[in-house]
């Protein structure tokens, strides 16, 4: 027994000594997830350098500086533009600000469209995505969308739409929508052109990436409030006029929507996924070729026209940083190494900016091409990954003169095998918000909806995806007629009735509301879309009788300006 215990003790001691030895030999490394840009973007390269350095020491115990293995990772951060797009993406928001300032300060160029900055500002990523919701939902007073899509712009999308689909009140709606992660990164000045934005400091980035937000505003609705008068201003005004209704603002929040996309879990390293990825990339070969040529051209111009190589002073500084960083690694001083790398990064930017007056414009041009290239990569990644399993949507609606509603919607997108296009299916329940008045002749449930739309891209010669043709059908069932809030404003002229605050009437009919729509969308350059649509409905929410109508809109995807903001591609 004693021998057994002794053997176990010796074995444990040996294991502990071995572990301590292994631990002592492990090279010091940065915890990259805790770092911030710009160092964060180079951190994995620095760790690779530290590993190679630890494994290649000379007889004196110092790093073998002539060892090719040691030099390979060192070159990835010694010249901080070793990956030029990483370098330009890091500068995106800063350059955007400087360019914007420069444009304001200087007089307008004689031909704005010819300047690189202007090109970057007014050109955009032509995102002809079928699965992107730009405008308001089907129950808005101004909308072109009978069926909602799961995706939105990577950063921000603005849409103006006119014409109603299910509502009786025709209106004009302005909708702002965007991806929560893209908006967060843009607003906080984080790098968003990165292909794998894995910085843990971006608050809940993984969750935000799958959340899309939008707000719709009725731009032709006036808000008003009652005000007590100070008495008649002239003799012709009766003294009984003691209060008036004042317009307080034009434009009114019509609704707010939040969507969350649920994806099929997938392993990007699995053989099955990689096989699908390779097939997807192969099928998009021409598209990749075109986009890579454009990006390559802008990078070649940036790199080849830099004058850093002819700047002797900069070359001496760069050489001294090389020696310093090796010294830092030899001393195991990671804090100093970080400081020296960041200083070298800043010195490179300052020198390049001083030596090349076109530096900012060239960076903006590279970033614009990079945004397009990343958008293509993102689309192919999502194609290989498969469409979202399901999208859950919550929306809060404030229709004119009607009670507020809370809608819960399921959005499903499906690309039929062997077919070109996208089938979108929605199922939704709408509930009245707030307290249901005592004695109300209607329940909490407003309606249930099911709708479907098929979008088919139309390809014209030498210009793919110039337009989209869509056919949609919508069915809504209401257990009760619609509710209309009664105020002094919607009483017939001359009516003199004192109304309680919550006066309501039932209008229209319970039962089924059918709408069909045919839509043609022009996908213009620079992220602009112009939808035209006609619809037929068997009734509207408040009135009986068939209704034929038209809708028109325009939307702009501000993701095309991601090079200026530093934006990411999104859903």
């Amino acid at each position, binding site marked *: 027994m004693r021998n057994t215990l002794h053997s176990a003790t010796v074995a444990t001691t040996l294991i502990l000594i071995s572990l301590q030895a292994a631990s002592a030999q492990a090279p010091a490394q940065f915890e990259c997830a805790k770092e911030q840009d710009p160092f964060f973007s180079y*951190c*994995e*390269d*620095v*760790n*690779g350098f530290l590993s190679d350095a630890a494994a290649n020491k000379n007889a004196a115990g110092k790093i073998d500086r*002539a*060892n*090719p*293995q040691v*030099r*390979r*990772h*060192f*070159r*990835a951060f*010694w*010249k901080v*533009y*070793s*990956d*030029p*797009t*990483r370098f330009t993406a890091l500068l995106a928001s800063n350059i955007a600000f400087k360019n914007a300032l420069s444009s304001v300060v200087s007089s307008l160029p004689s031909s704005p469209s010819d300047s690189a900055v202007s090109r970057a500002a007014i050109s955009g990523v032509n995102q002809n995505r079928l699965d992107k919701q730009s405008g308001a939902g089907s129950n808005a007073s101004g909308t072109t969308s009978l069926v909602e899509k799961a995706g939105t712009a990577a950063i921000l999308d603005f849409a103006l739409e006119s014409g109603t689909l299910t509502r009786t009140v025709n209106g004009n709606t302005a909708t702002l929508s965007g991806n929560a992660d893209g908006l967060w990164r843009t607003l906080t000045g984080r790098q968003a052109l*990165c*292909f*794998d934005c*894995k910085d843990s400091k971006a608050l809940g980035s993984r969750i935000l990436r799958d959340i899309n937000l939008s707000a719709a505003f009725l731009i032709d609705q006036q808000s008003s409030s009652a005000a007590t008068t100070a008495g008649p201003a002239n003799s012709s005004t009766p003294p009984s006029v003691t209060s008036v209704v004042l317009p307080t603002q034009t434009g009114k929040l019509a609704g707010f929507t939040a969507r969350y996309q649920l994806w099929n879990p997938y392993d*990007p*390293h699995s053989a099955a*996924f*990689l096989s699908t*990825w*390779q097939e997807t*990339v192969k099928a998009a070969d021409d598209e*990749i*070729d075109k986009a*890579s*040529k454009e*990006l*390559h051209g802008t*990078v*070649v111009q940036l*790199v*080849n026209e830099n004058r850093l*190589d002819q700047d002797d002073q900069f070359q001496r500084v760069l*050489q001294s940083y*090389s020696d310093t960083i090796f010294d830092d690694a030899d001393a195991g001083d990671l804090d100093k190494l970080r400081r020296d790398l960041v200083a070298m990064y800043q010195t490179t930017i300052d020198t390049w900016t001083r030596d090349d007056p076109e530096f900012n414009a060239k960076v903006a041009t590279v970033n614009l091409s*990079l945004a397009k*290239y*990343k958008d293509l*990569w993102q689309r192919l*990644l999502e194609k*290989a990954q498969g469409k979202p399993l399901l999208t859950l949507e919550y929306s809060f609606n404030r229709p004119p003169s009607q009670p507020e509603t809370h809608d819960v919607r399921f959005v499903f997108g499906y690309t039929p095998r062997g077919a070109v296009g996208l089938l979108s299916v929605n199922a939704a329940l709408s509930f009245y918000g707030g307290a249901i008045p005592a004695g109300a002749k209607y329940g909490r449930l407003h309606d249930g909806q099911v709708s479907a739309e098929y979008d088919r891209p139309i390809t014209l010669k030498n210009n793919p995806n110039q337009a989209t043709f869509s056919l949609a059908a919508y069915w809504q069932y209401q257990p009760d007629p619609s509710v209309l809030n009664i105020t002094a404003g919607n009483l017939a002229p001359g009516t003199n009735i004192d109304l309680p605050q919550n006066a309501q009437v039932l209008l229209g009919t319970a039962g089924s509301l059918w709408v069909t729509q045919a839509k043609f969308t022009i996908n213009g350059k620079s992220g602009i879309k112009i939808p035209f649509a006609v619809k037929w409905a068997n009734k509207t929410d408040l009135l009986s009788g068939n209704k034929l109508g038209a809708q028109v809109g325009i939307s702009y995807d501000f993701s095309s300006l991601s090079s200026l903001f530093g934006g990411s591609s999104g859903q």
Partner: protein
Amino acid sequence: MACALDVTGNEPTAKKGATVTLKVIGANTTLRQASVNQTNVSANIDATRKSVFFDLADGRNKVVLTFFPPPAPETLDIVEDCGDGTTQPVLSFGISIHAEATFDIIAS
């Protein structure tokens, strides 16, 4: 065939006129475009989109490579393919996703 590059310094060096073959080692990264001093050498990219060759001019040769990025972060090594089954490292990136790489080769 011996390697053309000397990769022991901060920047690779070689004899002018030497032909260099670069190979991209990254599981799902493919090489789409390549240029040397503004001369597009993408026609010299092989069918697997993993290597490219070019001749070196006297002086500084600015090499720019454009990749189609992988679906997930991976290490990316650019090595010289010395032709006899051996390679030597030129530039290595840690685990991440890259669309571009550039480095200079000094030829004399």
